[in-house]
Each structure stands twice: as C-alpha cells, then as structure tokens.
C-alpha cells in the first residue's frame, strides 16, 4: 500500500535511468544516509564504532570490490586478502616514506598499486577460468604473504614484520576519535558504492556481465575478453586495495601480514556468495551477516543468562553460524540481496497479491 509506484511517471530518459526509480526508495535511501551520517555519529557508543560499524563498513567495501570481479565478471578469485594487503602495505609505504603525504592520497595510491598487482594476476584469466582460475589467484595470496613476511622494504625495515601508523589526519582534521574514523570510512564506502553502481550499469558493466554469462558469445558480438576481464580485475583490485588500506590504517592501526591471510580471502568470498553475487547491495548484506552475526551469537548465551564456558560458546557460534550459512544458501541460493529483492516485489503488490 505504502510501497507502490502508482502515479510516478517518468517523462525523460534521465528519470527512467536513475538508480532508484521509485520515490519511496529515494526517500528511504535519503533517510538511511541521514541516519548514517548524522544520527549514528551523535548517538552510537564507542564500542559500536570501533568494533562493529567500522569493520563492517570496511569489509563491505572489500566485498563490493570482490563482487565486481566474482559477481559481475564471473572470475572467481581467492586472492582478495592479497589485494587488501597490497593496498595496505603500499599505502603504508607512501605514508612513511613520502614526507607530508596526505592520508587520502596514500590510500588511493595504495589502491593503484593493488590495481597493478590485480591486473598482473588477472592475466592468467585470459586462458583459464572457473575453479582453475581460483587456484591461480591463490598464487597471488601466497606471493603477497611471502613478500610481506620476507621483503624488508615492504614493511619499511620493521624487525618483526608488524607495521603501524599514527597521527592520521585529513585537511588538518585528526582521524582519531571513533566517530571520525567511522565517518571517514563511511564517506569512502558511499563514494565507492555509487561509483561501482554506475560502473556496473554502464557499457563496461554490461561487458563484464556478458563475459560472465557466456564468454564465447560475448567475444562474437564484439566484446574484447582481454579488456573486459582485465578491467574487472583492475577495478576490483583497486576497491579491495583501498579497503585494505582502510583496514590497516583506520581499523587496526597496527597490523602484520596475518591480518590479510587466506582466511580473509575466504571470508570475503563467503560474504559475496551469501550476500548475493552480482549485486552492490549484496556486499553490504553479506558483510553484515559475516561480521555481525558471529558477534551476536557469541554474546547470545550470556545475554539470555545461560552460563556457558568461553570455549563452548565459541564452538557453538561456529556451529550455528555454519548451519545458518547452509540454511540461507538452501533457502535462497542467490543470496540475501535476492531475498531483499523478493521482499520488495511482494511489498509492491501487497496487500493484493496475484
């Protein structure tokens, strides 16, 4: 009843092509942004900023990046952690080696370095695909892990391989308080989500999807596989690299190569699969599921007043979480984003379904 587009007519191509064609959606999005940018920074407690919202935003960004590669272009990658690490370590090097390097510039340059590495490791995708490619991208993971652990200049000569950053600021505003960190990440995420959304709606996005759906047919109608695949790798690695920089700089503050190990790659791949392949929204839902749910499950016995040992509740969390993943994938193999879309469809018809 409330969520219906009756009477909303579009009289120009511009209006027809906007991201959110339904007025209610636009209002909801505006409200969401208002809450995210104004209400949350004013009201949320510190724990939320530091342990829930900031990691959620950064991993959403990484999942968004990975989704471009896996969801839109169909190139399965297990090297996401590596691209994050490249972004983080490169940004770190720019930050410490170049005097007076602005924070945003070093993060973006870190993303660019990640792009280069991403394209390099994307080259095999021209010859191999599917699971074989996934294994090939593992090479990126191992190579980056190895170089972060072995090559002294990657960690700026740190004895232990652990690096840290301090005194972050943008235009003279210190990024120290939890709310400032959150807003900083939020701005990145909003800008990148908008860019990504527009990118996948444009001709390049359609090329990626054509590649994903049937690469031979796509090549026949004039899409260059080299260009399409490598741009997907490049864009994806760039976004993932920036997310890596944010993870190291903003969330952890000090990190070691283990922060970007293979587990991180798997975690992000699960986010994309559970969130919804080929959907910008999916990255966010997947990140919410993977980041927030274990936190909640971990606390649930204590909140319900059930005495339980730490080890037991931790094991239980893994079990319930695993079961939930299976459950969701059986109920909706296309991920949470698809559930959301179905819900919206139903709402548009409600209360008169046909």
């Amino acid at each position, binding site marked *: 009843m409330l969520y219906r587009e009756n009477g909303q007519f579009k009289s120009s191509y511009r209006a027809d092509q906007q991201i959110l064609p339904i007025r209610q959606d636009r209002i909801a999005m505006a409200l969401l942004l208002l809450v995210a940018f104004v209400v949350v920074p004013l009201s*949320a*407690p*510190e*724990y*939320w900023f*530091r*342990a*829930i919202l900031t*990691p959620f935003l950064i991993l959403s960004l990484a999942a968004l990046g990975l989704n471009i590669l896996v969801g839109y272009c169909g190139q399965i990658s297990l090297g996401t952690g590596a691209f994050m690490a490249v972004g983080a370590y490169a940004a770190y090097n720019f930050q*410490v080696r170049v005097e007076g390097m602005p924070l945003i510039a070093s993060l973006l340059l870190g993303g660019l370095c990640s792009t280069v590495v991403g394209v390099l490791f994307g080259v095999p995708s021209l010859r191999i695909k599917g699971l074989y490619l996934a294994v090939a991208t593992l090479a990126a993971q191992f190579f980056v892990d190895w170089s972060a*652990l072995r090559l002294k200049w990657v960690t700026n000569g740190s*004895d*232990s*391989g*652990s690096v*840290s950053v*301090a*005194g972050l600021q943008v235009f003279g505003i210190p990024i*120290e308080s939890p709310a400032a960190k959150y807003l900083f990440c939020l701005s990145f995420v909003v800008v990148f989500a908008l860019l990504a959304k527009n990118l996948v709606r444009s001709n390049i996005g359609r090329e990626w999807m054509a590649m994903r759906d049937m690469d031979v047919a796509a090549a026949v109608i004039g899409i260059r596989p080299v260009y399409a695949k490598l741009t997907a790798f490049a864009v994806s690695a760039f976004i993932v690299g920036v997310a890596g920089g944010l993870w190291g700089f903003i*969330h*952890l*503050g*000090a*990190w*070691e*190569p*283990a*922060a970007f190990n293979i587990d991180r790659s798997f975690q992000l791949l699960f986010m994309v699969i559970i969130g919804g392949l080929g959907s910008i929204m999916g990255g966010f839902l997947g990140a919410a599921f993977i980041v*927030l*749910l274990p*936190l*909640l499950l*971990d*606390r*649930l016995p204590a*909140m319900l007043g059930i005495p339980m*040992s*730490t*080890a037991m*509740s*931790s*094991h239980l969390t*893994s079990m319930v979480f695993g079961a*939930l993943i299976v459950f969701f994938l059986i*109920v*909706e193999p296309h991920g*949470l984003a698809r*559930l959301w879309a*179905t*819900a919206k469809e*139903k709402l548009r018809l409600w209360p008169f379904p046909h």
Partner: protein
Amino acid sequence: MRQLKSFAFAATLMAAGLSGMANQAQAQAKEQFFPLLVYRTGAYAPNGTPWANGKQDYIKLINARDGGINGVKITFEECETGYATDKGVECYERLKGKGASLIDPQATGITFALTDKVPNDKIPLVTLGYGLSASQDGNVFKWNFPLMGSYWTAADMLIQHIAKKEGGFDKLKGKKIAIVYHDSPFGKEPMPLLDERQKMHGFELVKIPVTAPGVEQKSAWLQVRQQRPDYVLLWGWGVMNSTALKEAQATGYPREKMYGVWWSGAEPDVKDVGEGAKGYNALALNGYGQSPKVIQEILKHVHGKGQGTGPKEEVGSVLYSRGLIIQMLGIEAVRRAQERFGKGKVMTGEQVRWGLENLALDQKKLDALGFTGIMRPLSTSCADHMGSTSARVHTWDGSKWNFSSDWLQADEQIIKPMVKAGADKYAGEKKLTRRTPEDCQS
C-alpha cells in the same frame, strides 16, 4: 513468504541483540573489573587454555579467600580471540567499555595493534614474557609492561646458556646456531638480539621460518638436516612446538641440542611426543608444580569447592602457573595503587598504571603471597617496565620437566642500548617525547 518471515525474524533478532549489547557495554561495574582475553579454540588452544584457567582461578581465589582486594570484589569476563588480531581488537573494545583498568592480550600480534590504542584509553597493557621487547623503556612506552622478560632477554639467556655449555663465549666462534621460528611478529622479535650476539661472538645464525600455525615443518627440518647446526633454537607456540619435536625426532636431530623459548616449554608441547622429546630443553620463565602454597590454596579454596576452571590435574602446570603470576601481578598492581589512591576503592587504568610502575615484590612479599619458588622478586620503576630478567632452563626427561640450570640473567650491557634505540625509533616514528620525571609521579 516463509523465507521472508524467517529473514525478518533473523533481522529482528540481530537488531534486538545488538541494541542489548550496547546497553551492556554502557553499564559500569562497581567492582574492579578484569577483562580476560583468551583463546580456548583454534590452533593455539592447547597452550592458551591452561594459561587462561590460571588467570581465572587466581581471581576466584582472591574473591573466595580474601573477599577481593581490600574489600573490592573482582569481576571478570572472558572474550575469545582465537589468537586473531582483529578479533582481539574487537574483544578489547567490547571489554574496555566495562571499566577495564588493565589488559593482557595473550598474543604478540594483538599487542602490536593495542599498543597504539591504550594510550588514548589510558589502560595499561601487561605483556608478561611476550610483546614488544623495546617497550621495557617506560619513558617512551608509558602504558606497556613486558613484565619479567621479553624476547630479547629470552634470546640472550639462551645464547649465554649455550656459551656456558661450550665453555665460554669464545668457543662460539665458527659454531652454527639455527633458529626455527613461527613466521609472525612473535617469531621475529628475537632477531635483532641474535644478530647482535652473532656479530659479537662470530657464530653463524641460520634463520628457518615456519608458516603459521606451524603444522607444516617438513621443509624447515630438511634445512636443519642439510645445515647440521650445532644448536637449534625453537621459537614456537601451540601446535608448532610438538610438531617441531616430532620432526626433530624424524630428522634425527638430537633433542639435547634443542633449546626452546619459554613459550615452547610447557606440558602440552612435549606430552604428545613423550619419550621422543626426551632431552629437549626450554627456558622456564616461572616455577610450577603443585607444592607452592598458592597452588595449595587454590586447590583448597577454589577447586575444593567445585569452583575451579579446567581440570584439577592441570593446576600447577607450567602455563597455568604463568597465568597465576600474570593475574597476581595485576592484582598486586591494584593493591599498590590503592595504597596511594585510597584503600577499598576501585582503581582506574591510570592508577593501576602507577601501581604497575611501582611494584616492589621482594622475597618476603612473595612468600606471603605463596609464590615462593614460582617466581623471583620483581621491582619495576618508571624507566624499567620489566622488573626482572631471569629465567631457568629446564629439560624434559620423557615424563616431566626438570630444572637443569641455575637462574640466568639477561646481559644488561647488551639489552639496554638496544631497548633505548628501539624506543627512540618508536618515539621518532610516533613523534613522542620522552616522559619527564614529573610525569612519572602521575
């Protein structure tokens, strides 16, 4: 529709739960609260569990026997980190909100991440026997406390012990010493000191990394077989240790020539290998066994009343005792702070920091606490956040550990300049200035 319902249900549950979390975090405890970061699951659980049990049991003992610290009850909450840095940061943020005044992250990686956070939150970071070696310098690292020892002191003592065995430092020339280490900040921390000692005495140092968590060591031990080092230092943790001993057995490397750091010398490391680990040596940072008075008290007041954490047989094991010591030092720091800031009051992080900086545990005090034979006297100061640097070597005889050396002491002449240089480098990177004498009194 059913799918939708279940999804909506899950979403509501999540929202409700998360808001509950926030409320919980805001509630401030009126008792002295100790956050306990633990890992009872994952690859490091065999070693992390007794450690965590010891910490908890000591709190329970103080509450049950003494009714808290001068009447202030102690509360605690555990948070599972799984030895992962990001999980550790989450735990820290969660428990910080409950009025934490001291934190022991139990992992070198988490220590690195928290080192930059604790000065803002004014919570002292106790890293007993691990963490950042340079943080001994309290003039730069105001909030870090690597009590009793760091990886530099450990490495130094091991080299000293080996030199003694060989008959003097001059005999080390031309010898080959390999270090098989966990390839993480934990395993790499001792390297600067070993490099320094290598330059001084002219032995050859062979560095052999093992990828975390350390169950895959075939290639590492192949290198040991090729290089035939005179000694092997083992810098492992968790499953890595027992795997290394099994590999040494398979390679035929004499266990008598192997020396572990104090994180590689507890019961879980050798028990599974049993006879195969016979002759293996490791540093012992602390004493252990069921005879010390404090252990007896725990058996009586905690385990005797069915309140114990973990199995009874484990009480008094190496890592369990280390957990006791960490918790005792934390509680003694609170007690010391109360002497200055008011007895029977809840101490803040800043006050506990002062307590940690002014610990003076002489033999008499240790006897009174029941820690005779478990640890040596320890006294800290504003400049020295470590307090003492001694440890012993113990050797596994196939069924139990036996001490095989006198107390060793790290060489101040070597450690001091390295700590100062490390701290200066850190201060330079972070644009910190050294603390003034007035600041020490705060």
